[in-house]
């Protein structure tokens, strides 16, 4: 079993070495990590058998909250920006969540989409406040009172992202195994029994929904800070679809899969957009079909199967 842990550990080390070993990949990887954190949010819901086509909503709310805060409080501290942004995502997650947790399946997916479309059109239409389609700038926050140059700031953001990936990934996995997390996942298999255990399925789903909003918000605010600008595109349905896609690509329900999926996705997208920019959605859609129909456990499933074959062989020898 050391194999199982050694490979992820090596991957983490490889990622951590990027700013020095391959600085040209640093920005790409940072965006991938931000997206990965958001994708874990979608993954959480998949564990309860639900899919949201609108979770870019929380991605965008956190990013805009950060932008508004920085505009009204120039030179706000990074920690404050992060906390306020995620708090914004959580708060809206509670409000929207109280409504959508009454629904499952199709309704759950589509109502989330509707909420994200509402927010998107507010961002586009009320341009006096939101800057419309151009979005608004998100100036670099200070770090413990210091205004940093671009280079060091980006380095800090990179390692902060790596730390958050590890921390939030670890937390989410522990939560999945906890009593509350297990109860949350039974929504997928039997809500009748859940009610007859004296548990409100709605409240159980809400707890996971708030976690997913917080994770998407964290991803969104990192993305906003790293890019220095937030646009309505953050809330656009394509962004939500992308998150669902990555979650399924990595391995539906797998936390590690979310990050692996995000890195693979960002890398391919960056290099493929040069010659496949026009058909990018099409490539994604085709891929999604192939995964669902032929490899429903995603990259992690393939990895597990390969590992099982390897270790199985090891034992027989």
């Amino acid at each position, binding site marked *: 079993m050391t194999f199982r842990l050694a490979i992820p550990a090596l991957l983490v080390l490889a990622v951590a070495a990027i700013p020095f070993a391959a600085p040209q990949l640093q920005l790409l990887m940072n965006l991938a990590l931000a997206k990965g954190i958001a994708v874990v949010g979608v993954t959480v819901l998949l564990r309860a058998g639900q899919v949201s086509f609108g979770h870019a909503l929380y991605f965008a709310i956190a990013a805009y909250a950060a932008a508004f805060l920085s505009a009204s409080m120039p030179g706000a501290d990074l920690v404050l920006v992060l906390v306020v942004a995620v708090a914004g995502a959580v708060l809206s997650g509670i409000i929207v969540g109280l409504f959508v947790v009454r629904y499952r*399946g199709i309704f759950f997916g589509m109502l989330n989409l*509707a909420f994200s*479309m509402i927010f998107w059109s507010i961002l586009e239409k009320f341009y006096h406040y939101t800057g419309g389609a151009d979005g608004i700038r998100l100036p670099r926050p200070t770090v413990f009172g210091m205004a940093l140059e671009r280079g060091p700031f980006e380095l800090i953001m990179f390692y902060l992202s790596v730390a958050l990936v590890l921390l939030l990934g670890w937390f989410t996995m522990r939560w999945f195994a906890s009593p509350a997390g297990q109860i949350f996942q039974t929504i997928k298999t039997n809500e*009748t029994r859940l009610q007859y255990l004296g548990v409100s399925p709605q409240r159980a789903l809400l707890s996971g929904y708030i976690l997913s909003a917080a994770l998407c918000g964290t991803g969104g605010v990192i993305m906003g800070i790293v890019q220095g600008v937030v646009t309505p595109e953050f809330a656009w349905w394509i962004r939500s679809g992308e998150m*669902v896609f990555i979650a399924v690509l990595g391995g539906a329900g797998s936390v590690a899969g979310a990050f692996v999926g995000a890195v693979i996705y960002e890398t391919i997208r960056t290099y493929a957009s040069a010659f496949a920019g026009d058909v990018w959605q099409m490539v994604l*859609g085709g891929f999604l079909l192939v995964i669902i129909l032929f490899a429903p456990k995603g990259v992690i499933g393939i990895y597990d199967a390969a590992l099982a074959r390897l270790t199985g062989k090891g034992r027989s020898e």
Partner: protein
Amino acid sequence: MNLTIFLLALFDGIAYAALVFSVAVGLTLIFGVMRILNVAHGSLYAVGAYLTATLTGYVLALGFAPLLAFPLMIVSAVLVGVLLGGPIEWLLLRRIYNKPEVLQLLVTFAVFMILEDVQRLVWGTQPYFQASALQALGMVKVFGVNYTVYQLILLPLLALTLLVGLRFFLRHTILGKLILATTEDREAAQSIGIDADKVFLVTFIVGAALAGLGGALASPTTSILPGMGADMIVLSFAVVATAGLGQIEGAAFTALLIGLGRSFAVYVWPETAVLVPYLIMLIVLLVRPEGLFGSPTARKI
């Protein structure tokens, strides 16, 4: 708000509702029979619009009369149903009827992503505008307000025909009764010799053609551009969900409700126009989670 503006808003709302209904009715028909929400429905609507604009432009360039635009709308709708709807059901949906709902949603979502790019590849990103059908029918004056015959008379009339025709088709024709029987109980229907596969295929083709028809009818009234499919799927879902999934007559009512709500918002507070349909849906679902005309289903235990 004076009378002229009131009438304009009213007419806008009716015309818009007629369009939305023709799209939403296909969505709700497919759901009612197959229990699948086709997220790609919006793309089929967009393709119907593009196809009509292109075909009409082509025929007009050959020097034919603008009235030919009307049969071309039907042609486009049928093409969408047969060339896109058929293969989607036959190649993809057929594999996933027994899969969890989440996977079904993901599959139609994937088709949606693919078709969005197909449109861009075929028709580019420049808006299309092809209003000859609209112009061909001229204007009509009602209480001092000038309005196009196409939107004020033809569209609502078509929507009504669609509603009545579909009702008649489902209740009084053999194929319609086969579809209803399959909806009620798929296994029982198969046991008495109904080919459920064929029923599903036909239903999906009809539903897809209705989406295409909605696009075709919309094409003279709006500029056709990328992204219209995404807007339409969410909007027609709002209509269908507000009515209750699978409720055809209900969808007609909620289309009117949402269409009017939206058009009045345009004149009163334009920024909120896009929000009104969703607000209506959210309010209705808060009070009646199963929709205005849906009935709550209690699980048997």
